[in-house]
């Protein structure tokens, strides 16, 4: 439980005056993801603790360095959960890094991403000014949505100091069923079932098996499970599968491999994204593990492995690039925050 806001503000203010590049770091268990950046380290890992938690309101406000694993434990005591089910990466990932890197679990199509649960945050911009946006209430449209803008910004617009999150009650029941299917058949099934108002919280295809996770109330899960059929997966195996999927352990690139991420319309044919190794999010996210450094397809994210100074997040149209550079300037005129972490030109 430490509030380092003042210290962080001072560090950025000093860097602003001296135009010193800063590298925002939290768990830093994953320094090799995204693009490489360098600079004086801003350590977020010790800026931790719960600012307020109202279990009856289903809202929590925590400092950015708080670990996902600790947050999960705390919420579990009240039978509550983070709706976006982020990975905790061996217990090291922090909530600030999770928001900055926009990390969501398998339930993304049904329970939304980070932005859908994010109510507000504190931000220190490149001038070293501490600001608050959004709040702890469910709906808020006063001013521009600076809060959600931070999702995926990789810290390039500011240091996230605290976040307010909308919570959901923990599921009462859960169940995973599997089906032996080719990717083509599985995709058809996923598209069909995704639109049936079933309590589905995960649909993924990996190594010839379609995994369907059901979570919700007892009777809802049981009746959906009866409806779907398939092979029941035991509790331990199911937990291990969804955990491994979330934590990115199913596909690990070796030194000459790259793990690519595709994001698109869930009904894109299997043939449109060739050599897919894993389908997630009912078809809307696909993963390709390939040897060599050439992207197998345009528009992919170079998720893991390969040259980390390449344009790993993919190409951006010239007007978009110009716009993003102006937005970066609006937050960080000297370009001192995580320079080049997102794109080489930012």
């Amino acid at each position, binding site marked *: 439980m430490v509030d380092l806001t003042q210290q962080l503000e001072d560090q950025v203010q000093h860097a602003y005056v001296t135009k010193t590049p800063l590298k925002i770091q939290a768990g830093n268990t994953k320094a090799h993801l995204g693009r490489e950046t360098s600079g004086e380290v801003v350590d977020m890992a010790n800026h931790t603790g719960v600012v307020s938690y109202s279990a009856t309101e289903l809202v929590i406000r925590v400092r950015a360095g708080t670990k996902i694993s600790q947050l999960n434990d705390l919420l579990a005591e009240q039978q509550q959960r983070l709706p976006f089910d982020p990975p905790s990466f061996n217990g090291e990932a922090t909530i600030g890094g999770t928001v900055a890197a926009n990390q969501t679990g398998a339930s993304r199509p049904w329970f939304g991403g980070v932005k859908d649960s994010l109510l507000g945050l504190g931000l220190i911009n490149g001038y070293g000014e501490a600001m608050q946006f959004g709040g702890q209430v469910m709906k*808020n449209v006063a001013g521009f*949505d600076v809060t959600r*803008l931070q999702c*995926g910004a990789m810290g390039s617009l500011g240091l996230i100091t605290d976040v307010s999150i909308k919570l*959901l009650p923990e599921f009462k029941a859960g169940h995973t069923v599997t089906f032996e299917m080719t990717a083509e058949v599985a995709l058809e099934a996923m598209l069909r079932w995704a639109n049936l108002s079933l309590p589905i919280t995960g649909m993924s295809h990996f190594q010839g098996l379609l995994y369907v996770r059901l979570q919700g109330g007892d009777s809802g899960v049981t009746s959906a499970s009866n409806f779907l059929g398939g092979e029941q997966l035991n509790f331990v195996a199911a937990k291990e599968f969804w955990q491994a999927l979330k934590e990115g352990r199913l596909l690990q690139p070796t030194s000459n491999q790259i793990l690519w991420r595709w994001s698109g*319309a869930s009904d894109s044919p299997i043939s449109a994204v060739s050599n897919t190794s894993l389908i997630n999010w009912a078809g809307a996210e696909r993963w390709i593990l390939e040897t060599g450094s050439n992207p197998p397809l345009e528009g992919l994210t170079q998720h893991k492995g390969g040259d980390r100074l390449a344009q790993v997040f993919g190409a951006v*149209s010239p007007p978009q690039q110009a716009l993003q550079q102006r937005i970066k300037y609006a937050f960080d005129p000297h370009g001192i925050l995580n320079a080049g972490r997102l794109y080489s030109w930012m």
Partner: protein
Amino acid sequence: MNTLSNTSNDLVKQAGEAGNVAALISDLQQLLPASGLIMSTESQRPFECDGLAVYQQLPLITVIPETVDQVQGILRLCYSHRVPLVPRGAGTGLCAGAMPHAEGVLLVMTKLNKILHINQHTATARVQPGVRNLALTDAAKPMGLYYAPDPSSQIACTIGGNIAENSGGVHCLKYGLTVNNLLQVTLVTIEGKLITLGGDGLDEPGMDLLSLFVGSEGLLGVVVEAKVKLLPRAPRVQVLLAAYDSVTAAGDSVAALIAQGIIPAGLEMMDHLAISAAEDFVKVGYPTDAQALLICELDGTDAEVEEQLAVVSQCFKLHGAKNVRVAKDAAEADALWQGRKAAFPAVGRISPDYYCMDGTIPRSKVGHVLTRISELSNTYGLRVANVFHAGDGNLHPLILFDASVDGELERAELLGGDILTLCVDVGGTITGEHGVGLEKMPQMPYQFGDAELAQFRRLKAAFDSEELLNPGKGIPTLKYCQEYRSLQHG
């Protein structure tokens, strides 16, 4: 429709910058067919305000494009002539966000009204911005799908306006606001360039520009196309009505239900004045002796709904509901909703004018804030009816007044201002879904500090450095804030 006539020459003179304006008008005439330009005072009257009619202003000229090319051309012209531009959808907004600019162009988007494609597999739709909210849900119905954000104005309001305001509705408690149901937006920048934000997938790499754009009130760009999510219709929908002797008890029921982890599809509350007005108007059998009503909608599979129904009824009774009515069939459910949906016009029948506020507060503060509002109502001598999205703490106090009585409008505005600052004081916000527009500018410096406001202004400049898009709305200038603060402390 009137085209270029003598009136336009008058306007040119009035505007002061005669050269600029004359050139702009002649360029617009080159760009658009005669039917796409409205210049006479008479024909522009219907456009002089949005749903908040106390703010009125005639624009210099009104344009109604039919193609994206034309929209780009219009923005390019405004940019090169440095003339302000105000986008407009159906004009149902409640914060004077679409009120025209005296020296500017009013850009009416209602003719870009095609549903381009509905994809049943992915449950998504590609639409033009002028498509009406309800028209989309109607078109998706044969496929068993619907568009979840459902403002009470859904019969008229446009998707473009919804995106600009981040609109919600009675079902956003469970299914989210516009921002949670949007995948992609194509916008035209003030320079006339096309930019696409978001994508076909769920999470694109990089900063979330799409979310930044949602709710930006026409200050950052003009929406010309959107891709939205549709939802499958739930197999079972169940509506309950609970009557209470006090608003506090009803408020406590809401907090208790949420605390138990039940998220209904909708959870609305009406107070005594709103109940009587609605019942007088639609006659659906609301108990007019109740001090507060909760309307609760549960949806899901049969099994899920049955499970929740028991919990909800019990929770309401435990927290003081003297009567819980469960709709027997779809017709009765519709009737129970009808009173809520007609509440604004119903209140309109019992008062010459009303003023709708939109503050949002933590759910646990509902009882406290409603009590405080009724005290304020007594102090100002103006009645207030409350009908609102209780499930997410989004209040809609309706201040009843008579604009023809000297000073009543001013009193209504002062009371409204006090309600909004009260919302901020209990940890809430001045607007949950209607936007800031022109109306809530005075409260912006109350909710935000100087650093946040300056950050908003720099963001605005990143999109629109010449301040031509909907100027004077949404984000107060530095000078405005200084004046506001000196008034407060002076």
